């Protein structure tokens, strides 16, 4: 953060300003962004200081994230604009911290901000860039592309205006060449060379340092040839090659030849775990290199090799990701390059494959180095300004005084993310939220942003739809003829304006779109770009700022569902047009909705009294919330009670426990020990909780910190007499009591971890190394038999080396086998095949210690708290977080948060960080009086309702009241908006806002307007299948362009009528899709979709001349991109078969494919007393309601597809 030499006149501050705020955040990467948003959302005023011209940090430069393969900037960009737009956050870019006086509670920070030379009036027309004659290396592309002296760091950069780089510009000392081409080119006259620096005095109570990291320049590892051969790259350079917005537009090309490589080598631990450079493990390289390996194969490179020493796939889903890479063909070889010969046309790498014991000398087209993570440039100077200490590696020292990694050596100064050592995004984000929690304890007064004050647009008149079609750089424009789509869209009915934009989500483009809505008096906006799941809120903000109700926005996902999954430009363009028309036609039926405001019960409940639960409870209480902590055991502490020494670092676990208990007391947390949560109901802001102690609590937020269980010991190791076999937890007790009676102890790693769905248990390697070192220090002979040694966490790799130096003997057993398969314990010995020697080794032992993996608690227990709260679980049974990267402490259920090993196995340090993060999130919610809820609540038309009770029967939330033959009513607060009732209602008396019958029919009509027989109407639920379709796009899994996706909140919303309607309109096929049974976001609403489907299929089977295969059902989860693509391919086959069978000809004969909707009830019907002439389903288009009750079908069961139980319930009523 050191300022540049203050020689030039323009760097001397000419302006002085004072800002009063609560928290200063230094560093605007993802950690700083997360801290700022959490604080601001909790009512704290934040000043965010960033030395670069834009916030976003390294994450903005990444192409994809692991293990989700999310587009990195796509998930970060909404946060960038949120930060910029937040009234509680002041962002100072090009700024450095120069001084910090005072103490916690009353700091004054001196911040120096260099001028941008471009004022806010900039319209981003790019004329200045065109005019600028000076070219230099583009930092964002790691110098692999160029930029001008006046430039935007990257397209989505925030704040988005241009910036002038005075070091490159001609018109500044010491260059002194009068060049004002940009000024003359700038029509709005917003370039001003006379702008000067500003010095701010920022008054805050606390400071958060989130200064991130840099990569070690691999030139210092001389033998790897970086800088000597163009085809030896750093991982970050390679990341830019992978990025569609990067220098090669996403094509992997060899810098030497510009051609695609046939093979790529990834080299891990470049400077990490290396006494000559960085002793420590850099923690993230194993996984991002695995991600890059997967992407490389996805780009069609056939031969991908990774050289590793230990694969440190320690996080949630990491092991599965590593496995996926290998399944897809990536070769992992254990070894470390000795040298890279750069003299030839391709770099030649020499290494020993240590598992085969063979020397390899091989040429690779590209060699990608994963350099060590080092403290960001200027950390030393910043630490001096902050008055905090650095460790030997140059990272900020975290005192771990409270068990977390957040506290620094100066009270009131906190650290988050890579400032204290290498960390991945979820750990950084959790820690950043944790730092926010710490800072919130010092915020005296909360400040709330004023609501947007713009004149509202009345949408009630004639529909005026605006269409924006996004290029997404080249992501869309490369595959879809965007100008053609725009031109076409402009001619659609109701459309009054259409425009192409390069990046719709870029901050300044958002402003432009807001102005566009106002300027053209739009009352509906269609954004054809990416997924509403990631960017819906962004564009809702756009229309809201224009005064337009945010529910008058509709998105067409022409990226994930079109350009990313199709190769044929013509077909993709045609599909994009259909998708835009579907959105435009739906938009015409959109109505403004108002968010439902609910009061919040400002009281928190933490479930689970281990280290995570205690920490979260204390933090919540210290933030000023009445907090209740429920623990089923009689005593608090969880597993911490049985621990004595925390590894690495050797902290006293009991002292930490004592301190926590005292803090709980001091903070006034209401502890309910020996109590269980029996019943919990309600929703965000208003939960009702019944405890087993007959107490009842009304709370607004719930933190689940229910921990994890030790895995069961393998049967094969049970009852072995000699040597004695114990768990690591049992050993912990003996160690503390000084009762280890053994001369030789052998540890076994991965007992109950890395097995099937169970991934790495994350805590055990460092704990095992620590216990082993303790024993060795006492003179015991110690062996460690592990798969990989995953000492990834701070100071753990050093502990591993020290343990080896102190006599602990390390061996490796088969990583692909379970311990009981690979290891025999008998007759006083532990016998296994040593991987690095290829020999069977016997270790005489007195005691065997199993490093036990952790398993999800309560996963299969009926009625457990998580289940009652509808919090999903992952494949291993751990609680599923909202987003693996950016939402690690939140459940997808509002008002529910998670901490510690309940989410996935963690050590005390990580559990504490995450607990603080959860406390920040929960505290932020409780700081407000009210919470806003989506207005997607069912509405019953009292005049139409016949009181048949079907809706009440199928409602998963019992949110519909009413009895037989009485008009039903919806309990707004309880309705979650799945729409199952609306699908079920025989008289269509229920309206689902945002997903009305007429809106869905309009989409079907639009989709089938041309060549309907070639199309597959695909209903996809918002939570799983639509996300799965998004994922297919993210993974670039190509499938035929016949799919036309219609999003509903739940598959339960899909009315059987919609299927009929689609077939009547000539659809080639119809696919229903949703969450897997058991995973439904609305408990079991998808089971009704299944029942409807089964009845429909049964009926179609009886319908001669109709190929019932044309209707399909498939459960596709959010993670199953591949399955989605495969299903769409299968559906396309069905359509083709239908076309080949003459079905289409028939349809043509019927007028079905002439481009006009068919109006007769036609082909799909007929058969056994189904929808005959008296059926209403074909005549409801554009109407959606029956006016005449006499038109109701008399035999609903036959004519429509009621689920059996619902029908039975109805009949019985």
């Amino acid at each position: 953060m050191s300022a540049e030499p203050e020689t030039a006149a323009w760097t001397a501050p000419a302006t002085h300003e004072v800002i009063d705020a609560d928290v200063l955040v230094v560093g605007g990467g993802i950690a700083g962004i997360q801290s700022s948003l959490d604080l601001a959302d909790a009512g704290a005023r934040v000043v965010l200081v960033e030395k670069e011209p834009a916030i976003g940090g390294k994450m903005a430069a990444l192409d994809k994230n692991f293990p989700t393969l999310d587009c990195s900037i796509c998930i970060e960009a909404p946060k960038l604009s949120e930060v910029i737009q937040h009234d509680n956050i002041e962002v100072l870019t090009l700024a450095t911290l120069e001084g910090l006086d005072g103490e916690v509670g009353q700091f004054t920070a001196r911040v120096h901000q260099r001028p941008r030379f471009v004022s806010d009036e900039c319209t981003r027309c790019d004329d200045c860039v065109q005019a600028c004659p000076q070219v230099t290396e583009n930092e964002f592309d790691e110098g692999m592309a160029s930029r001008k002296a006046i430039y935007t760091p990257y397209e989505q950069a925030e704040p988005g205006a241009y910036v002038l780089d005075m070091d490159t510009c001609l018109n500044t000392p010491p260059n002194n060449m009068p060049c004002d081409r940009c000024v003359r080119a700038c029509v709005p006259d917003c370039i001003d060379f006379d702008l000067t620096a500003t010095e701010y005095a920022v008054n805050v109570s606390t400071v958060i340092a989130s200064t991130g990291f840099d990569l070690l320049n691999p030139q210092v590892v001389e033998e790897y040839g970086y800088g000597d051969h163009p085809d030896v790259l750093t991982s970050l350079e390679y990341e830019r090659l992978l990025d569609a917005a990067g220098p090669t537009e996403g094509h992997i090309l060899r810098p030497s030849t510009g051609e695609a490589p046939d093979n790529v080598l990834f080299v891990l631990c470049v400077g990490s775990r290396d006494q000559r450079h960085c002793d420590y493990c850099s923690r993230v390289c194993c996984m991002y290199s695995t991600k890059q390996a997967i992407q490389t194969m996805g780009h069609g490179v056939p031969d991908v090799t990774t050289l590793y020493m230990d694969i440190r796939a320690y996080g949630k889903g990491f092991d599965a990701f590593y496995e996926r890479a290998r399944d897809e063909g990536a070769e992992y070889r254990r070894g470390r390059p000795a040298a890279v010969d750069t003299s030839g046309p391709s770099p030649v790498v020499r290494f020993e494959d240590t598992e085969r014991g063979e020397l390899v000398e091989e040429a690779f087209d590209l060699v990608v180095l994963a350099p060590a993570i080092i403290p960001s440039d200027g950390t030393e100077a910043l630490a001096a300004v902050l008055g905090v200490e650095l460790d030997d590696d140059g990272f900020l020292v975290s005192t771990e005084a409270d068990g977390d990694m957040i506290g620094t050596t100066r009270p009131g100064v906190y650290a988050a993310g890579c400032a204290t050592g290498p960390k991945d995004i979820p750990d950084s984000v959790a820690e950043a939220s944790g730092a926010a929690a710490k800072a919130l304890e010092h915020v005296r007064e909360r400040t709330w942003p004023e609501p947007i004050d713009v004149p509202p647009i009345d949408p009630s008149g004639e529909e005026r739809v605006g269409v924006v079609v996004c290029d997404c750089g080249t992501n869309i424009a490369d595959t879809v003829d965007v100008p053609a789509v725009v031109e076409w869209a402009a001619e659609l009915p109701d459309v009054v304006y259409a425009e192409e934009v390069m990046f719709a989500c870029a901050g300044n483009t958002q402003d432009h779109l807001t102005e566009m809505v106002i300027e053209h008096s739009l009352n509906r906006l269609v954004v054809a770009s990416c997924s509403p799941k990631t960017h819906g809120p962004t564009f809702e903000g756009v229309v809201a700022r224009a005064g337009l109700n945010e529910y008058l926005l509709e998105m067409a996902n022409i990226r994930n569902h079109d350009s990313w999954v199709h190769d044929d430009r013509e077909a993709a363009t045609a599909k994009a047009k259909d998708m835009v028309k579907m959105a435009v036609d739906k938009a015409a039926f959109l109505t403004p909705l108002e968010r439902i405001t609910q009061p919040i019960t400002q009281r928190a409940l933490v479930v689970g009294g281990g280290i995570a639960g205690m920490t979260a409870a204390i933090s919540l209480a210290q933030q000023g919330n009445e907090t209740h902590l429920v623990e089923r055991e009689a005593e608090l502490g969880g597993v911490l009670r049985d621990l004595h020494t925390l590894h690495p670092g050797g902290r006293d676990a009991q002292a930490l426990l004592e301190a926590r208990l005292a803090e709980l007391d001091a903070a006034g947390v209401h502890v309910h020990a020996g109590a269980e949560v029996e019943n919990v109901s309600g929703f965000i802001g208003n939960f009702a909780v019944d405890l087993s102690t007959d107490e009842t609590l009304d709370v607004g937020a719930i933190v689940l910190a229910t921990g994890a269980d030790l895995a069961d010991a393998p049967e094969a190791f049970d009852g072995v007499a000699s040597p004695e076999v114990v768990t690591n937890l049992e050993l912990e007790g003996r160690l503390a009591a000084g009762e280890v009676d053994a001369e030789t102890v052998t540890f076994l790693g991965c007992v109950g971890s890395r097995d099937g769905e169970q991934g790495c248990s994350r805590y055990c390697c460092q704990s095992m190394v620590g216990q082993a070192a303790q024993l060795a220090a006492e003179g015991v002979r110690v062996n460690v038999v592990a798969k990989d040694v995953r000492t990834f966490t701070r100071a753990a790799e050093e502990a591993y080396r020290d343990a080896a130096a102190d006599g602990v003997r390390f061996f490796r057993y088969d990583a692909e086998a379970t311990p009981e398969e690979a290891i025999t314990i008998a007759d006083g010995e532990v016998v296994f095949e040593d991987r690095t020697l290829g020999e069977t080794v016997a270790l005489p032992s007195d005691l065997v210690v199993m490093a036990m993996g952790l398993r999800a608690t309560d996963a299969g227990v009926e009625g457990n708290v998580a289940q009652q709260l509808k919090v999903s679980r992952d494949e291993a049974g751990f609680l599923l977080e909202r987003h693996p990267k950016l939402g690690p402490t939140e459940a997808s259920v509002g008002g529910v948060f998670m901490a510690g090993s309940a989410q996935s196995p963690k050590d005390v340090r990580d559990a504490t960080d995450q607990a603080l993060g959860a406390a920040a999130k929960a505290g932020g919610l409780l700081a407000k009086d009210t919470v806003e809820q989506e207005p997607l609540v069912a509405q019953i038309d009292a005049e139409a309702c016949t009181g048949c009770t079907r809706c009440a029967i199928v409602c998963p939330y019992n949110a519909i009241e009413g009895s037989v033959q009485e008009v039903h009513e919806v309990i707004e607060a309880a309705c979650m908006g799945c729409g199952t009732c609306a699908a079920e209602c025989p008289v269509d008396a229920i309206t689902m806002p945002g997903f009305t019958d007429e809106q869905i029919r309009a989409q079907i009509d639009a989709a089938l307007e041309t060549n309907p027989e070639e199309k597959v109407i695909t209903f996809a639920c918002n939570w799983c299948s639509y996300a799965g379709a998004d994922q297919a796009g993210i993974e670039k899994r190509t499938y035929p362009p016949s799919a036309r996706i219609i999003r509903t909140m739940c598959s339960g919303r899909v009315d059987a009528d919609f299927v009929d309607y689609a077939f009547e309109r000539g659809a080639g096929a119809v696919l229903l899709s949703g969450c897997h049974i058991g995973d439904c976001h609305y408990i079991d609403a998808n089971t009704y979709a299944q029942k409807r489907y089964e009845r429909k299929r049964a009926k179609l089977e009886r319908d001669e001349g109709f190929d019932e295969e044309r209707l399909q059902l498939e459960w596709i989860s959010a993670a199953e991109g591949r399955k989605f693509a495969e299903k769409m391919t299968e559906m396309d086959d069905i359509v083709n078969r239908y076309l080949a069978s003459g079905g289409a000809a028939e349809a043509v004969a019927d007028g079905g494919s002439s481009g006009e909707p068919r109006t007769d009830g036609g082909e799909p019907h007929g058969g056994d007393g189904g929808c005959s002439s008296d059926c209403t389903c074909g005549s409801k288009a554009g109407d959606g309601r029956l006016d005449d009750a006499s038109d109701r079908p008399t035999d609903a069961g036959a004519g429509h597809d009621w689920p059996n139980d619902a029908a039975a319930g109805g009949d019985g009523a």
Partner: protein
Amino acid sequence: MSGSVLRLDDATWDRVDELTGGAASVCFQCGTCTATCPWGRFDGEPLSVRRLMRRAQLGLDGDDDADELYRCLTCRACEAGCPRGVDIVDAMLGLRQAAFAEGRAPGRLEQALWGVYEDSNPWDGVTSERGDWLDDVPDDVDVQVGGEADVLYYVGCAPSYDPALREVPVAIVRLLDAAGVDFAVLGNDEVCCGDVVKQAGEPDFFAELAESNAAQFTATGATTIVTSSPHCAETFAADYGLDAEVVHYTELLANLVEAGDLELGTLDRSVTFHDPCYLARGAGVIDAPRRLLEAAGVELREMAEHGARTLCCGGGGGNMWLESELDERFADRRATQAEATSADALLTACPYCVQNLRDGTKKVGADLPVDDLAVLLVEALEAADGGAR
């Protein structure tokens, strides 16, 4: 895979641990050493140091392992890349001690050891003829034999007995003399430094040698000991526990040139320089020879592998006494590399390297004279004096 079960024996493990100074335990078996080992580039069979250590720890080491151990050139190429900072050469020498004790050391190395025991040198030289090189020193150069001096010049066995190398000590004393250094040599009383004994794996005799030599050195009162060979220098510096500073002659001379005590004339020629591995990697002396070449006005044409990345001549670690059955030897490769630079001469600064590289150039038919740097420096000295001396 042997199929048999290796049973870990604590005593064996501890012994290896002790012999290797703990190095074997710290190793995490990444194989960097194996892939670095220059042997791999000649016969495709590198020394797998990590494997040798692990096998020894488990008591699995047999005769094949001993052959491997003695193949090690101790050139330290592997150490440069070791991420765990393992002192690999020390570990190898430790393992050799075990092999020697079990009678698994190669016979020829044992013979050399007996030579040192009986005649104070491993080259079958006669003790009374050790100082014969002094006969070749020009009369106007005064060389003090024995007695006290600021600097003790230790000549070494190979330059003393190999007629082709005798010009080296002659050159060095001329240079020391020209620089006005107060120095002495030991003449016939000089005894082998013991490097070959140490390399063979015999610790007790080596300790004896070191003790008596050290006493002799101390008696001269020298504060600096300068050597012709980097091998001797390393042996003294690492194992003798001397108070005196031990330097290779290139370091001393480079400093003298810089201090203005030694004036060199300009030679019009180009040379390439082979860094001896004990000098460049062992002692980290890379600049000194180059500074001297620059002072002599010589154009230096570097080979691809130079400085810390130098390729061993094949003579280190006792391999001067062992036969290599390779079609292409290290020195042959080196000679070819040197020839490719089109330099007028190939220089180095180690007696073993001179001997091996002369063989190598002959074998590959390179028309390239091989000399010790000292010999060229004397020419430069003469050029400065206008040949007056």
